[in-house]
């Protein structure tokens, strides 16, 4: 692709474009959520859609997540393909029954006779001092519960392809986008998230991880914002003569264990980077996926760089102390060598 053909979009615009194109193709797709109409979404991922599709298909809701996510389940079972937004994933506490007991289970309970083709998109992540009710990732919480696919893009190309795939999927998909990658005017954005995005509609396979940087000495596995931290750490390790491979999980459910195992089989070392809480989560699952399969490939005990098991603090110094960053990943490599 030559530079002149580059079409660099933020994740917010890539998501909006995917929804726009799918709504043009498929009249059963519609969007519900708080402030997704005139405002275009607090994170910009429905911007422009109200003007094109009107308030019937771009529906601002009351602050009633239990009602509108539950309604999305019912609409999905009745032939629609709703896209609903939970503004902050932290708000799942007020509406989780609709998510994990209805959305995630009705296909199973009905023996497959009721499909629930809906997308639940929700913002994740901290790093900007929004404290413990507005900064969480809770990836592991969603991925733990069976019946819903879970994806988390790290860049705009993946964001568009995943969104289109999610809307076409006959199963519910939880689409977790990171605020720090989104490209909002009021928050800094990781530069690596804004990449070329083809204009035409396309899908990315849900359940397929990507090797985003090849290497031979250590595998760093992450998702969302963590991928960018991993890539930065990999560049630093390269200066030390260490060749790090970076795997972007892209999807948590289904989890592409084959790609992870193949990478670790090659490098013999594994570091998992996760902005979610350390215990009982994604980092443990990735390590178990390797060790229970074939522990003999490991030349060193795996390491994880994850959020400690504490609520996310407000004060910048405390929050930054807790968050994963490239330094901590490089340090994890050093600890691995010292062991």
């Amino acid at each position: 692709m030559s530079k002149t053909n580059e079409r660099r979009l933020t994740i917010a615009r890539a998501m909006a474009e995917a929804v726009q194109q799918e709504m043009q193709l498929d009249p059963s797709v519609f969007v519900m959520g708080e402030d997704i109409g005139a405002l275009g979404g607090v994170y910009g991922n429905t911007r422009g859609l109200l003007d094109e599709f009107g308030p019937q298909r771009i529906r601002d809701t009351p602050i009633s997540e239990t009602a509108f996510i539950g309604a999305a389940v019912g609409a999905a079972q009745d032939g629609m393909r709703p896209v609903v937004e939970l503004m902050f994933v932290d708000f799942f506490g007020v509406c989780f029954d609709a998510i994990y007991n209805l959305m995630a289970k009705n296909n199973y309970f009905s023996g497959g006779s009721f499909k629930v083709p809906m997308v639940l998109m929700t913002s994740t992540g901290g790093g900007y001092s929004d404290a413990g009710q507005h900064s969480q990732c809770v990836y592991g919480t969603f991925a733990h519960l069976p019946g819903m696919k879970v994806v988390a893009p790290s860049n705009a190309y993946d964001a568009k392809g995943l969104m289109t795939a999610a809307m076409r999927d006959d199963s519910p998909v939880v689409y977790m986008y990171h605020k720090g990658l989104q490209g909002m005017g009021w928050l800094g954005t990781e530069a690596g998230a804004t990449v070329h995005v083809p204009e035409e509609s396309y899908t990315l396979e849900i359940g397929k991880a990507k090797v985003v940087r090849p290497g031979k000495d250590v595998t760093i596995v992450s998702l969302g914002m963590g991928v960018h931290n991993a890539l930065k750490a990999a560049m630093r390790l390269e200066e030390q003569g260490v060749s790090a491979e970076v795997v972007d999980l892209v999807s948590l459910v289904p989890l592409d264990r084959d790609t992870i195992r193949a990478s670790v089989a090659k490098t013999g070392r594994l570091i998992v980077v996760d902005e979610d809480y350390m215990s009982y989560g994604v980092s443990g699952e990735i390590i178990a996926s390797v060790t229970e399969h074939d522990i003999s490939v490991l030349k060193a005990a795996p390491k994880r760089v994850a959020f400690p098991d504490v609520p996310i603090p407000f004060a910048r110094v405390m929050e930054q102390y807790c968050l994963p960053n490239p330094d901590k990943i490089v340090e994890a490599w050093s600890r691995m060598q010292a062991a």
Partner: protein
Amino acid sequence: MSPTRDELHWMYRNMVTSRSFEEAIAKIYFEGKTPVFNMANGPIPGEMHLSDGQEPVAVGVCAHLNRTDVVTATHRPHHQAIAKGVDLDRMAAEIFGKSTGLSGGRGGHMHIFDPEVNFACSGIIGQGLGPAVGAALSRQMQDKPGVAVAFIGEGAVNQGAFHEAMNLAAVWKLPFICVIEDNSWGISVPKQSSTAIANNAERAAAYGIPGMRVEGNDPYAIYDAAGEAIARARAGEGPSLLEIETYRLAGHFMGDAEGYRPKGEKDALQEADPIPRMRTRLLTDGVASESELAAIESESLARVEAAIRFARDSEDPAPEDALTCVFAA
């Protein structure tokens, strides 16, 4: 029930203190956030929800409360915290994320907790209702004095928690008052687009309890209505629901472009600013002299400046303090 002269002076003082506080925060908030606005930067990072214009609700209700009464507040809590008597120095320090803050910087502006005056917050819409009902239950069970007030926004009545908490408080006849601050906007969504009825006080009928709506963002009328509801609760006659019309003079959060507001709305709201209105009435009624009001204003400003200075001069927490306070010591 009419406010006494002392109460009126107290109400005006707290309204002015609250406004001065928000104005100070608004100014400092943009430090380090220009020329490119990034919420993560500056001495006060993160989201900031200011209460300019909503002061009458806080003072009209809290004029009837004492330190032992319980208040739960929202993501926009500063005016309520000030009126409830939360330690201003430590609240400012918390908003700056300093070690001297109410929670040592763990909570920030949406999570103001002061046990000395029984004040707590939640940043999640409607979720302060349950804890306020629970505090009322605790007072009833222990036969201890005190009432619990949950402040919520008008958008919060559409949360399931509202219905559940109201019914629970009513069926157990608890000393609880739900105060809806109706600023007519849920971020960008106007009340009439989100709520099936115009007057949420009518919902009280669903629980068999008194409900009253107060128009005009008027501290005198709010004082009257709240006084009645709180007296009822203190007398063991059960909960009440108040919906109070108020104005959000600020955006939903600092940095909000407010493109969703109809043209002219903001100017009209500024015209109706409750603080100059109360000032005029105090003078007209002969309840305060010009020099008394000037003294209240300068003392309030000095109080705020001292709190801001305390916050600025305080130390950051130690980074590893993040790992403490997860469990009870």
